[in-house]
């Protein structure tokens, strides 16, 4: 009887690992917490196509937009942590909780970070009103004429990145909020606001069209895909070590073996030639992290943004 019980227990434990082996046996849903057509949406859809080919199961994409990606994330936190519901989000995942305190889930335990899909440093672009080329000259110009940093909305990653740069570089600048990156960049082109900071995927199309100029990357060193753009680090600005990443998440409480399996599959998916083209078009590099590294980075950034929100008096609910 005891042997039977022990065997049953061992079998059950092995089944846990076996579940990770069989996964997936039915369609998987990937939630995109933004409305369709944006760069995040397109990259997530490309990832979905890769995973679909890899797994042989349909991977369905659902757009659940709202509340700065928190509506989709809240929905994710309510799903079963069996790996069949996943979510792709940008660094907004770590900035939004810094301004929204009444979330219906715990940002640390309610969501499991699985892996980083792609990353790039944040890029600051300047519009028609800024005459300088290069960050060093920009700092000079900013002293004569206090600048306006446009953001895509209160609590967005563009907002936090702008506040960080202003603080660390000691710029006499203010932020002005818009409803979305598109509106912000239009105002840049028209010369009404001066600078906008976002991921390369969001701004490079307009830089390549010549509509805005790439001013500086927010990183200690220059970005390999943008070798002609200065970095904040080389201009003596310290303390900026953040990334504009795109990550894969699952509901909280996922089995670690399943997380590793998904992380491995995701890393395989982003290494395909087809996805490499997507990465190139968006001027981002593949994530290539383990789930533990990614989780650490997400939590580190959450702390950073909460601290920045307090220092710069960004409204925290």
């Amino acid at each position, binding site marked *: 009887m005891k042997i039977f019980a022990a065997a049953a227990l061992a079998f059950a434990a092995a089944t846990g690992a076996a579940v990770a082996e069989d996964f997936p046996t039915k369609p998987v849903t990937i939630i995109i917490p933004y*409305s*369709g*057509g*944006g*760069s995040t*949406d*397109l990259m997530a*859809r490309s990832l979905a*196509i890769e995973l679909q080919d890899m797994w042989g199961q349909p991977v369905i*994409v*659902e*757009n*659940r*937009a*709202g*509340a*700065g990606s*928190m*509506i989709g994330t*809240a*929905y994710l936190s309510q799903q079963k942590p069996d790996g069949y519901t996943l979510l792709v989000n940008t660094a907004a995942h770590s900035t939004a909780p810094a*301004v*929204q305190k*009444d*979330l*219906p889930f715990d940002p640390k335990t309610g969501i499991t970070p699985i892996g980083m899909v792609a990353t790039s440093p944040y890029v600051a672009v300047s519009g*028609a009103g800024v005459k300088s080329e290069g960050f060093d000259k920009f700092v000079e110009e900013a002293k004569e004429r206090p600048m*306006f940093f446009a953001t895509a*909305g*209160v*609590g967005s990653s563009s907002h936090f990145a702008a506040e960080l740069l202003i603080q660390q570089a000691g710029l006499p600048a*203010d932020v*002005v*909020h*818009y*409803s979305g990156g*598109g*509106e912000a*960049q*239009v*105002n840049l*082109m*028209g*010369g*009404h*606001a001066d600078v906008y900071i976002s991921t390369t995927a969001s701004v490079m*199309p*307009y830089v*390549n*069209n*010549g*509509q805005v100029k790439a001013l500086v990357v927010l990183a200690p060193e220059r970005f390999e895909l943008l070798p002609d753009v200065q970095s904040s680090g080389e201009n003596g600005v310290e303390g900026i070590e953040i990334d504009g990443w795109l990550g894969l998440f699952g509901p909280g409480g996922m089995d670690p073996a399943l997380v590793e399996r998904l992380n491995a599959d995701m890393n395989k998916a982003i290494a395909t030639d087809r996805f490499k083209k997507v990465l190139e*078009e968006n001027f981002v590099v593949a994530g290539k992290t383990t789930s533990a590294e990614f989780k650490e980075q997400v939590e580190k950034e959450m702390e950073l943004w909460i601290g920045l929100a307090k220092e710069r008096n*960004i*409204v925290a*609910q």
Partner: protein
Amino acid sequence: MDIFSNIALGLEIALTPVNLLYCFLGVFLGTFIGVLPGIGALAAISMLFPITYHLEPTTALIMLAGIYYGTAYGGSTASILLNIPGTSSSVVTCLDGYPMAQQGRAGVALAMTAIGSFFGGVFGILVLSLFSPLISNSALSFGPAEYFTLMVLGLIAASAITEGSAAKGLAMVVLGILLASVGMDPQSGIQRFTFGTLDLMDGLGMSALAMGLFGISEVIASIRTKTDGTTATVTPHAVSMRSLIPTRDDMRRSWMPMLRSSSIGSFFGALPGTGPSIASFVSYAMEKRVSKTPERFGKGAVEGVVAPETANNAADQTAFIPTLTLGIPGSATMALMIGAMMVHGIHPGPQMMTEQPAMFWGLVMSFWVGNVLLIILNLPLIGLWVRLLTIPYHLLFPAIVMFISIGAYSVRYSAFDVLTVAGFGALGYAMRIFAMPAAPLLLGFVLGPLIEQHFRRAMVLARGDLAAIVERPISGVFVIISVLLLGWSLWSTFRQTGKAKLVESEN
């Protein structure tokens, strides 16, 4: 001349069998979706978006664009026949369209809207073809200050939409503005009236409000009055082909409104962030103001049906100007269009006309093809739509409520949005009981937040200097026009009251 070679190039691409087929599919689907209340272009294009991965980029765009401007043709059908708007930009068409249907002139109303839609579409395409670079450069110079003064002008201009008691109209506009304040304050991040829910953080949806306030309330009101099981007031044999043809009088009255509304629609369509809804309000109000007999509006004036439909079609066409020449989406639907291009590595922008002439002109010429297909499709279908009225209400209305609910849910997969529609339906019904007009509420809801957001942004950029907002050239012009318009409205009101008093005293 360069333009002719571009047109030739575009026609060559637009008229290939594959593109023709997808154009037809797109406009047909678009019309059908426009007719269904509640489900709009955004839902359809979102659902069909994956098709862009499997088609040539131009072909996919032609189809998606066909759905987009096709809904503007079909949206008036339900507005006229059932007093339920088919799309949010067809709300204003209900005001005169339904009275016309009640007078037995449904066929004429449908025919005039089809013709007006075609006129507006063609006008928009011409503007798009000839003036895109000029317009997009001008649109860039519209900053927050210019948008603010323009929206104020729009509010003053569209205020003519109210009928009856001006106090009630004003109260409804204010209520609309209050409802629009729900959500996160865009400049400071403070939550307003959200009661802690995430669902309200982005505010109440415009589509949910329009469908609930006009659609669901109409269903509720009709159920009350039609409990004896009668069917429509229009029976099939009353709708002969003869009655579908507009009279010469109708055509005479309509062509100037068509011209004016096309201009207004093209203007608002080309500005990112404003669109067919605002265009339809302002053009209706404009026609009412310049008309010699404004009292006919709201009771079945053909101009009141032609104006908004022409404007919203023109706006839908010129919405492609910032999308294609700046790469900036003016609305969520346009973001999907840009996404469809980006999937294939094409980044719309100022270089698009020179580097991707085949796609640009192929698309523009497909708009011509699409509009022609639509007018050919829509005119004969009028007889079919009018027969919709013969479906017993106890079958028709549950279907309508179902479509509205599906449409509301499909935006964000959110049950909360469906409840919002129901809530606004109840509000709309309560407003009917108290004879409060609903159109001003929608006007306030649409324009109020735009006015606030742009004003506060302009103040931040001007560092609190109010005069700086007014002193800019374009804003200054809008301010002057607003003041003049306000003055003229007041003066003509006093003159009307003066005349009435004179008539009274003479008697």
